[in-house]
């Protein structure tokens, strides 16, 4: 395809999106041509998803412009973007499960006759769209009866219904099987043959080489490079995605590794975790690597008693624990910092001090000792450098990094000897990241056992003494620090043999 001779369908010109404390997309310029599959690759948090949201008008750009067929596009809302021909197929499907396929496809654009919905036209329209995505099922079926892959095809059919010129797909293969992926790629090729551009977000390397015409690599909110597929190989792509010269971001003290602190044996949760065993030593930072959905968070939650387990045992300092709930895990000396602060970490209507003392409220005969609470909060603020004018502000006003410190402070108060950090650097800026990692290092130095879950490999490679790699709910392998390479981790995480990925 001679892209340079065509005029671009969409141009992003110096577009930026700033969230409080984070520049998620930093002066990005990008051209997308009709009929191309343009893959945007990058690590988690590189800004890919935010970039897509700027295009589909879910988020308003802080600065910069979007140009469609030579005309500047004004930000209104996602419906407006759809009318312009920009459709998004969401990572989590946005279908109404209790409606039929046809009803979902025309949702919000129902054709009516004398004010009543024209059911026959609706079904006919749906049938034609389903044919375009190669799905030969009755449009009158309920969406809740469909498989994940079928639902995705319905999503794509829905996207096509609006005369799409650009279809954006955000990690569409995350939950698909090999055969379903092959079908999806065939559908994508069908779309590009009709001149529709497909913007495809992925961090699965093998896919990128199968489907991409061009690849744009993002890192820390910026476009690092845009290259035709012929000019990239896997190693180059990884180098572009990960970047280098960021070693000082991870201040790791020399480890003083002691005896085994936590030993987990054969944890099984039907359909989620299978015979997972690992151990962490005092003073050690153990990393959990793996793709999103590989079971790392689920394993941490199972150890912490947040989800029930079907089999397995947990031992702390040689004693077998009976963990029924988070409360009993905490009592035993285990702490868990959740991956999503807002969803299940912070109590947003409580103030900073109250959030710090949530797990370990200072009380005298069940009356809160407000003076002690104040002292605990002041001490935590000074130690962790929580930046706030007052400890009695609601936690909502804090930046992501400071919110994370509030949660760390909460767990320090419990005297936990084993701490699970689930995506500790998610949504926080570079400086706060370094502070959090420094803190994690010092907690390990004090003799705690640390388990760190992260989807950002450089974090794990730099901070951890040992790595456990998970795949599909199983422990896929273990790597000592001397064996750390991204290729080895990726090979274990994806199940590809090492020779294959290299």
């Amino acid at each position: 395809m001679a892209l340079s001779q065509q005029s671009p369908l969409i141009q992003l010109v110096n577009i930026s999106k700033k969230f409080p404390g984070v520049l998620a997309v930093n002066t990005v310029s990008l051209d997308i041509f009709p009929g191309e599959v343009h893959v945007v690759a990058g690590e988690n948090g590189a800004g890919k998803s935010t970039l897509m949201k700027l295009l589909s008008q879910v988020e308003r750009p802080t600065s910069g412009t979007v140009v469609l067929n030579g005309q500047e596009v004004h930000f209104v809302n996602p419906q407006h973007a759809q009318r312009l021909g920009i459709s998004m197929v969401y990572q989590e499907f946005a279908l109404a499960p209790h409606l039929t396929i046809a009803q979902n496809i025309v949702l919000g654009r129902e054709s009516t006759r004398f004010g009543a919905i024209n059911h026959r036209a609706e079904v006919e329209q749906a049938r034609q769209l389903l044919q375009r995505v190669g799905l030969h099922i009755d449009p009158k079926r309920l969406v809740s009866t469909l498989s994940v892959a079928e639902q995705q095809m319905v999503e794509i059919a829905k996207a096509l219904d609006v005369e799409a010129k650009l279809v954006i797909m955000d990690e569409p293969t995350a939950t698909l099987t090999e055969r379903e992926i092959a079908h999806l790629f065939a559908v994508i090729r069908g779309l590009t043959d009709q001149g529709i551009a497909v913007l495809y977000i992925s961090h699965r390397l093998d896919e990128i080489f199968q489907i991409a015409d061009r690849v744009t690599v993002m890192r820390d909110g910026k476009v690092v490079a845009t290259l035709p597929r012929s000019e990239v190989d896997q190693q180059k792509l990884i180098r572009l995605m990960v970047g280098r010269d960021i070693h000082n971001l991870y201040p790791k003290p020399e480890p003083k590794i002691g005896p085994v602190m936590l030993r987990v044996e054969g944890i099984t949760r039907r359909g989620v975790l299978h015979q997972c065993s690992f151990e962490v030593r005092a003073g050690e930072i153990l990393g959990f690597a793996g793709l999103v959905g590989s079971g790392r968070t689920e394993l941490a939650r199972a150890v912490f008693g947040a989800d029930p387990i079907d089999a397995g045992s947990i031992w702390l300092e040689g004693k077998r624990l009976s963990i029924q709930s988070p409360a009993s895990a905490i009592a035993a000396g285990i702490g868990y910092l959740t991956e999503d602060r807002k969803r299940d970490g912070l109590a947003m209507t409580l103030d900073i001090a109250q959030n710090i003392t949530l797990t370990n409220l200072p009380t005298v005969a069940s009356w809160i000792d407000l003076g002690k609470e104040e002292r605990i909060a002041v001490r935590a603020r000074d130690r962790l450098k929580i930046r706030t004018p007052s400890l009695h502000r609601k936690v909502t006003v804090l930046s992501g990094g400071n919110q994370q410190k509030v949660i760390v402070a909460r767990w320090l108060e419990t005297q936990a000897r084993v701490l699970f950090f689930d995506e500790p650097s998610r949504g926080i800026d570079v400086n706060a990241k370094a502070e959090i990692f420094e803190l994690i290092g010092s907690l390990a130095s004090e003799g705690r056992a640390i388990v760190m879950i992260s989807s950002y490999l450089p974090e794990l490679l730099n901070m951890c003494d040992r790595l456990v790699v998970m795949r599909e709910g199983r422990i896929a392998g273990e790597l000592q620090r001397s064996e750390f390479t991204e290729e080895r981790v990726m090979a274990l995480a994806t199940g590809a043999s090492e020779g294959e990925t290299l």
Partner: protein
Amino acid sequence: MKDAIQSTNEVIGAEAAPHGEPKAWQRMVVQRARERLGDFIGQATAAAALIVVFIFLSFASPVFLTTDNLINIIEQNAVTATIALGMTFVIITAGIDLSVGSTAAMTGVVGVELVAHGWHWPQAMLIAVLAGGVVGLVNGVLISVTNLNPFITTLGMMTVVRGLTDVYTNAVVVVGPESELGPQNFGVIGLGKLSGIPVALIILVVLSALAYFLLSHTRLGRYTYAIGSNQEAARLSGIPVKRYLLLVYVILGLLTGLAGVIAVSRLSIAEPNFGIGLELDVIAATVVGGASLFGGQGTIVGTLIGVFLIGVIRDGSVLLDINSFWQNVIIGVVIWLAVLWDQFRRRRISSLSS
């Protein structure tokens, strides 16, 4: 290893204590004051509305600002206020209880019926209060252990309790002997005075103080807010969420039982039809006072302001001879304004957080 961790923390603690102590204390006073101010601003609209209505009625009606009328307002609203104290806890957990009206009627019937069967009123009425607690316990078990939706659970309970009360009484008023229920005996609770102060007022003040301290100074209160603010975060912080949810519904049940007793005391008979729609008055008062149906927000002071704002508007409407149907329209508009204000506040919070 444990010791090593312990000692590090102690060192940090020791560092902070000697220099930090007076400073922290001073800071605390200032910050508590600020916190109170924040709470106050949260309730300011309702409080301001109460003051405005109060001043207006003082001029508009010669009767309004008389001791008799003010006592009347307190006695008239004692039942609603008693239940609203408990409802505040439940609503802060992001729950709701629609069964309180039925339960208040049921407990009144239980109390009077026991007296009619020869019990002395103090024992009879204690059993009545506990009966309210039992209803709360069942609600609490269904909501926390069985994980049913509070709205539906208590909607069912509302119908069940009203039905049982009607089955037992055949929907006929229950009476007891004057020697037990008369104004010199049981009637003292709802109508009596203690050195000139209405007993109902004393009960209300004591209960309010208790509820206030429970909510702002105890583990129970803190966990009530935490559960309503983010139930999963509370669970992952080791809070026994189910136990505290259960407790909150039991507290409301007990207060509802007490409210049923107070109502019976004023009338000296038990009316099986008592309290139809009372749950909505209670919820309205709580919401007007700044509690959020989405949980995590609400105060005892705010709830009392809400109860008496609605109570004073009702009283004033009677004094000014406003048609009682119009009263309802006014109250409804007040509820809308309160909810709009709540939504405005929440938007502000979420815009700050994103």
